């Protein structure tokens, strides 16, 4: 791992570990938007690891930002850090300037005229906090104002805002951006995969810790072979989720998604398909190991579990991406299946 990555990893893990214990997460769920924590995040540049240096960012790669995205999952971070980084990456590609404040990532279809972007019931993460909307449309990156938009709040089951946004948004800037039309959907899938990998890591660590401490029949749960099987199974799933997302980030950095031939599209599809599918067993096993305490609000396993269930569905789940891969396979035919994976 290069130095920038390890420094970033260490500093974000420290920040989140300090600021986001279960009490803090509980408070934020009750009180809403944690403005001061967001300010801290922005002050440390964590929202813009992928932004250009001119924009105050680190001009990082997706491999560089993966430790951060994973940490966002691990600590159930209730802030649009992943989304902000994606918006900054888009701005960097388009040489566009992203105004200060929370950017609202739009992944749905929009209508664009010479002055406005019309959105119809887009689900925008932290839409009610957003000062701008960030839209990729027909070879352009559009950045709009949010004044005058109709915004209805709705949280996903992780209690993270996925607000409904409709109306005509005034265009602040438009820049040519030569990326495929589904770029936001694909990179959205990548960031959710990374968050799942992080949430899964937290579920494993909590389960191992709990099983080592909780005693029944006179010994720690972890000494029962049945529980060891659960934990070993869980460890394999967690490690495989991490492995495939790390790989997808590296492949994206090397090959992008706009090139001809085999690009990162395949690897991202694999990552989101695998991580989404793994959520079921990861949450089932980690809860089983915890017994009833894991089903309480007081014990914080649910902060990651509920997000894992939300993230597996967002930006396409295992069926959507599985179908994409299955279709690619039948198009290649049996003889082309292995080259699809290796070449």
């Amino acid at each position: 791992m290069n130095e920038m990555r390890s420094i970033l990893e260490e500093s974000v893990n420290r920040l989140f570990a300090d600021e986001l214990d279960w009490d803090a997460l509980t408070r934020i769920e009750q009180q809403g938007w944690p403005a001061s924590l967001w300010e801290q995040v922005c002050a440390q540049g964590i929202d813009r690891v992928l932004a250009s240096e001119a924009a105050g960012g680190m001009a990082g790669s997706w491999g560089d930002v993966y430790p951060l995205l994973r940490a966002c999952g691990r600590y159930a971070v209730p802030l649009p850090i992943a989304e902000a980084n994606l918006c900054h990456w888009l701005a960097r590609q388009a040489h566009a300037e992203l105004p200060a404040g929370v950017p609202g990532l739009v992944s749905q279809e929009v209508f664009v005229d010479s002055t406005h972007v019309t959105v119809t019931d887009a689900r925008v993460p932290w839409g009610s906090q957003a000062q701008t909307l960030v839209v990729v449309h027909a070879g352009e990156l559009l950045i709009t104002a949010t004044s005058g938009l109709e915004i209805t709040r709705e949280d996903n089951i992780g209690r993270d805002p996925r607000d409904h946004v409709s109306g005509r948004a005034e265009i602040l800037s438009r820049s040519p951006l030569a990326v495929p039309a589904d770029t936001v959907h694909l990179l959205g899938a990548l960031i959710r995969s990374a968050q799942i990998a992080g949430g899964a890591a937290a579920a494993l660590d909590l389960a191992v810790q709990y099983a080592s401490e909780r005693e029944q029949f006179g010994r720690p749960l972890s000494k029962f072979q049945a529980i060891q099987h659960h934990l070993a199974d869980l460890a394999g799933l967690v490690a495989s989720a991490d492995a495939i997302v790390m790989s997808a980030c590296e492949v994206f950095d090397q090959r992008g998604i706009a090139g001809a031939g085999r690009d990162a599209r395949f690897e991202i599809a694999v990552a989101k398909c695998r991580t989404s599918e793994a959520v079921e067993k990861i949450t089932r096993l980690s809860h089983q190991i915890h017994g009833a305490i894991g089903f309480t609000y007081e014990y914080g396993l649910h902060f990651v579990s509920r997000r894992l269930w939300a993230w597996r569905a967002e930006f396409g789940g295992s069926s959507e991406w599985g179908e994409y891969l299955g279709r690619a396979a039948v198009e290649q035919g049996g003889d082309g299946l292995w080259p699809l994976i290796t070449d």
Partner: protein
Amino acid sequence: MAASIADSLRFEPCEFPASLVELRREVREFLRQELGSYSVVKRSQSWEAYDAEFSAKLGAKGWIGMTLPTAYGGHGRSAFERYVVVEECLVAGAPTAFHWVADRQSGPLIVRYATEAQKQEIIPKITAGKACFAIGMSEPNSGSDLASLRSRAERTDNGWLVNGTKIWTSNAHRADYMIALFRTDSDPDKKHAALSQFVIDLSQVKGITPRPIQNLAGGRNFNEVSFVDVELPPEALIGTEGEGWKQVTEELAYERSGPERYLSCFFLLRQLVDAIKDTASAATLARLGGQIAWATTLRNMSLSIAAKLHAGEDPLLAAAVVKDLGCQFEQGLPGLAQELCELEPTLEGCGTDYQQVLGSLVQLAPSFSLRGGTPEIMHGIIAKGMGIR
């Protein structure tokens, strides 16, 4: 926060050096030409299918014992080059059982521990694809609990005297050599430390009788092997007396993380794609795609371990994870294929190619979670690696 298990179990991505593209192309082309005449059932069995002629051809290409030193007739090539050849053979359904064990573990073991004379004699045969090795470890009363094995090798004036019984010994009835694990010390307190490894030239010794055991599909690959007053020369001991267990476990990370741990049914997956390609619903494609996602993920993990081994690490825990996940994946494929495609499994020579391959692998699948260590035992190793056992 306590030390994170998740952070201690990571599989950093590893890209093959670009120079391997040409080798891969060459291997593919060779296999395409060679394998056309083999039956699909034989191909579906890949590293279980024994074919001396094929192994000799592969050896002639320089693709067996690739990583062994050139001084002994090896090719001095990298672990990644070998990895490419192995995975291409598996996916193409090449019958590699004849040289499999020699290439994967016996060759490296001999280079590491055997005498100069043994190296000079044996390694060139291995690299030529002309030496078949068997592994004599399991016994009737010692399977998962291998260290409880009872076959004994006693020191004599002329070497060693061996008595006992091995079982499930693949290819013992047609192998040239056997690497066997025997008890060399009767001290009951030394369970592991009383075991030693031997290399046996099966053409030179008397008293070894293999009896093939038919498997459920009708094949005869593994054997019960009896040893009655077998006299071995002193140099048959390989490595250090009493360190057999250590020597055996040294090779385990290689054995458990190789591409054969998830690719055993890839030939079926290829056939399945063609069998359903015109009729598959979206739901079926999604299930198929899920398997492709698994295969890709496992390949990344297996390669990541190859890189760790290459760098001199000993990732035993990570290898157990790959073996466990790979086994779940490959063992699940025949059942899934049956679900996705309503065609009956058939015996060799009946039905379509796809049906024959399905018929073959449905029957072989139970063995995937036995050979090389069971999932229950892998889970124990993983639990130990996590510090909870």
